[in-house]
């Protein structure tokens, strides 16, 4: 099936007074209809920025400096603002961490839904209102017929995020970009929202990019995962492979850092050090100063994504041309 | 150490954004010329307008030097008493700047103190102080200054008043501007006082006064700098207005406002230079300071743009 979203070699730069910072470099992936791509990584890895670049909302002075983004085969990375605004909403729905940034506090949620739908679909007022109620029911808002006339502040946090989801989905976009949609919510509410998002994406055949730092959410929701580090994709592959047998030493470290729930361990494993700042990304592989398997080549050349069985990892350990360093050296757990 | 500090300034983001803003650079140059001209007036001015002995009534009403009747001795002409207008402007700017800066410092100290106290202590003290500020803000500051000046004049004997007139004007202008500082500082203090570094200090048991001064104060002064710069332009103008109305500094120490008022009498009899040049100087000074303030606000808080 043709991919809905294709990102090719995306590069985002931030011109600053101390030179140009490269925030994203060589990011490529695609998402098929009905597929959920999870994008994980630590703060500053570039995961949210990838989402922002796709929906055309990069914060200035950031700009796309290379590569291309295709939605249903059409370039959308060079569109003028007004045209991009129309695509957002109609073809791309966005869900952010804080529902209050998406909702207009001055309008009822019904009016916001109706306006969004009427902007993009030929609907009469009556039909649009009916559909708005239908959407609120679909996202699990009780007594939707009455709540449709409520203002955003009259909803609780979890309910607001449901409204945002309805708003993102109501124009039936081909792609949803969800940036930490459950991070602001409590665990007990998170599960409800995740289940809802997943069901809706499946049912409508919507492609979804799910940006989060929570591996648990990814494991439950995503079909494939891209692990990002310092503005690049470190590893990408089916969720099961990445979660259960990650290949890139960073993914391995990330997975083993998650404290286990089923037992107490004497010493938790983490990754030494911290992610480099954009202004100080080391030469070669960006992860090399923290990597337990680093060897000479890692400090010189930057690895591209290399096939490693089920996933692709940007790591020289998996390059047959690297002087023999058995990939088995990577320890899991 | 000093070289290191200078290096840090030259390397800072603020200086970088300054160099990239032509308006800021030009304003800074103009402001610097005004300030230097004023501060160094006794050294730079061609004449001493206060030295009555050197005044020659025969030189009165000389037009600027480039006009046919001009005299190279008096580049911007002379006034009705034969005083050199350029020198009078330089000495006048001294008074204007002195009053402007002093009153801004005064209102900053009062405003920051009250804002800090209201924001940090909160409760009914906060309500009381902020209602007072609200009430004062409903009056134009010039009205407050006039009121204060009037009251002081009425209360003090004439000789005493003349002696301390400068301080009265500084007080009058300063007291009219504190609410702005207080409100801004209170707002930032409300945010800062709940930050965890303040809580950490409270857990240690650091006294509230010390927390206010060493923890909160350094973190709320940023916006104060902006308001102070913008306020300086306003204070200079208020002083000029008071002097123009004749209630400001005593005529023995003419400020730019006084010069404009004196010159105003001759505007329609053709001796335009007596009032226009002090006016231009005032505009240049206030405008450059205000533009600098605008730039500073943008530079310190890019999101406001």
């Amino acid at each position: 099936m043709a991919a809905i979203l294709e990102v090719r070699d995306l590069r985002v730069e931030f011109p600053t007074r101390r030179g140009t910072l490269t925030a994203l470099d060589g990011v490529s992936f695609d998402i098929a209809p009905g597929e959920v791509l999870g994008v994980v990584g630590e703060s500053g890895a570039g995961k949210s920025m990838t989402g922002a670049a796709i929906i055309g909302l990069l914060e200035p002075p950031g700009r796309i400096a290379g590569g291309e983004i295709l939605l249903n085969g059409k370039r959308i990375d060079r569109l003028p603002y007004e045209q991009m605004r129309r695509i957002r909403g109609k073809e791309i729905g966005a869900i952010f961490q804080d529902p209050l940034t998406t909702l207009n506090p001055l309008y009822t949620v019904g009016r916001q839904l109706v306006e969004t739908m009427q902007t993009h679909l030929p609907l009469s007022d009556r039909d649009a209102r009916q559909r708005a109620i239908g959407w609120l029911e679909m996202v699990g808002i009780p007594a939707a017929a009455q709540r449709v006339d409520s203002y955003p502040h009259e909803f609780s946090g979890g309910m607001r995020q449901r409204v945002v989801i309805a708003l993102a989905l109501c124009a039936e976009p081909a792609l949803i970009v969800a940036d930490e949609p459950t991070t602001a919510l409590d665990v007990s509410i998170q599960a409800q929202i995740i289940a809802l998002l997943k069901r809706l994406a499946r049912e409508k055949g919507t492609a979804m990019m799910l940006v989060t730092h929570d591996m648990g959410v990814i494991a439950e929701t995503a079909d494939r995962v891209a692990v990002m580090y310092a503005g690049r994709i470190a590893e990408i592959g089916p969720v099961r492979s990445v979660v259960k047998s990650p290949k890139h030493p960073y993914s391995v470290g990330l997975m083993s850092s998650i404290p286990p729930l089923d037992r107490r361990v004497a010493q938790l494993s983490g990754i030494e050090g911290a992610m480099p700042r954009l202004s100080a990304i080391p030469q070669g592989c960006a992860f090399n100063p923290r990597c337990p398997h680093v060897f000479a080549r890692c400090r010189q050349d930057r690895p591209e994504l290399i096939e490693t069985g089920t996933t692709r990892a940007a790591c020289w350990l998996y390059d047959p041309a690297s002087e023999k360093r058995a990939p088995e050296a990577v320890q899991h757990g | 150490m000093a070289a290191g500090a200078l290096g840090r300034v030259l390397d800072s983001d603020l200086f970088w954004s300054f160099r990239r803003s032509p308006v800021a650079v030009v304003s800074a140059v103009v402001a610097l010329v005004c300030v230097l001209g004023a501060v160094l007036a006794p050294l730079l001015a061609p004449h001493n307008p206060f030295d009555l002995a050197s005044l020659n009534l025969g030189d009165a009403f000389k037009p600027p030097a480039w006009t046919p009747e001009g005299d190279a001795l008096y580049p911007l002409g002379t006034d009705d008493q034969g005083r050199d207008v350029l020198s009078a402007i330089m000495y006048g700017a001294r008074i204007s700047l002195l009053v402007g800066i002093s009153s801004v410092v005064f209102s900053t100290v009062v405003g920051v103190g009250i804002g800090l106290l209201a924001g940090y202590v909160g409760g009914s003290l906060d309500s009381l102080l902020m209602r007072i500020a609200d009430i004062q803000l409903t009056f134009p500051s010039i009205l407050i200054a006039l009121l204060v000046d009037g009251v002081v004049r009425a209360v003090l004997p004439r000789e005493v008043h003349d002696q301390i007139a400068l301080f009265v004007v500084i007080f009058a202008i300063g007291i009219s501007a504190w609410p702005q500082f207080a409100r801004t500082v209170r707002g930032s203090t409300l945010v800062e006082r709940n930050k965890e570094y303040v809580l950490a200090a409270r857990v240690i048991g650091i006294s509230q006064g010390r927390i206010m001064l060493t923890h909160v104060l350094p973190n709320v002064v940023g916006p104060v700098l902006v308001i102070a710069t913008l306020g300086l332009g306003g204070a200079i103008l208020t002083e000029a207005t008071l002097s123009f109305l004749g209630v400001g500094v005593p005529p023995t120490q003419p400020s730019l406002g006084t010069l404009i008022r004196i010159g105003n009498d001759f505007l329609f009899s053709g001796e335009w230079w007596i009032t226009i040049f002090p006016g231009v100087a005032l505009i240049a000074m206030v405008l450059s300071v205000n533009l600098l303030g605008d730039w500073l606000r943008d530079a310190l808080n890019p999101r406001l743009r």
Partner: protein
Amino acid sequence: MAETPVLVAEDLAKSFDVSRPLLQRLLAGEGRRTLKAVDGVSFDIPKGTTLSLVGESGCGKSTVARLVVGLYRPTQGRVLFEGIELEKARANPETRRRMQMIFQDPYASLNPRWRVQEIVAEPIRAFGLAQGAAALRDRVGQLLTQVGLSPLDGEKFPHEFSGGQRQRISIARALSSNPDFLVCDEPTSALDVSVQAQILNLMKDLQARLGLTYLFISHNLAVVRQVSDRIGVMYLGRLVELAPAETLFTAPRHPYTRALMEAIPDLEMTGRQRIPVGGEVPSPINPPTGCPFHPRCPLADARCKAEMPKLLPPPGQPGTIAACHAVEEGRDPAPAPAGTDQRIGTTATAL
């Protein structure tokens, strides 16, 4: 246990006035409104152990943390620090120096205008623990080394550090007055997961070496399991279950505790569906009658709606106390750890 617990909380309660301003209140014709953030919470923490409080946002766990270090004054009940009433204990610098706090947000917990040296030295100065500038500098260097930083880092400002390093600075500051008791309010929830492990390890290591006693606040059950000796689960300002850490995970009793565990995402990829707790946390301004959890509880009956349950040990499980009528009456399903069938016995490859 003969030894006095380091900390005892007795029937703690804290209400906040959340009324609107007087004028608006009069216009709307409404009365004062209070929010009971904490209501009737009791626990003790023996020396050298960790008690954790878990719960969702708004359950009152952070309020308890602040009550315990004296940042808030309780509306009811009292806190005893080594048997002494908190206010009296804090009036004496010698006892006050022995309790310290670590905060959640590493970006807000360090004064951005101060150098690290000054930040870490503040408690040392306040309690007069070092004589002279050289001794002070040495002590700060030693503390920075202890938390895995370099003594040279003292010259820098907080913004030059990453989140994890800042949290280390926070810990160094907390340790600088040689405390015995540390209150840790979500110390790792603002950190990335790979850094979280470093900080948790550091805290466990320091506890072992210095014999520290912790009150640990978190919303993350997995984190809590790694650090706690005992765990209290809070809901809507009340303690609903308190149990030894292992017991809480192997035999959770309160329906809310079970629901929380069910709601945790499954990293084992067993295909287990999360069973979401229905509904949302009610407003603490207007809490439900009876048991605060009854509107969401699958086991709720008429008694739960009417009567507040007491914290009692469930039959046959003496280490635990749970506030639930269903548990007390034996109406709840047999105690089995949430999702055991899948979880136990998995030799995680990734974890």
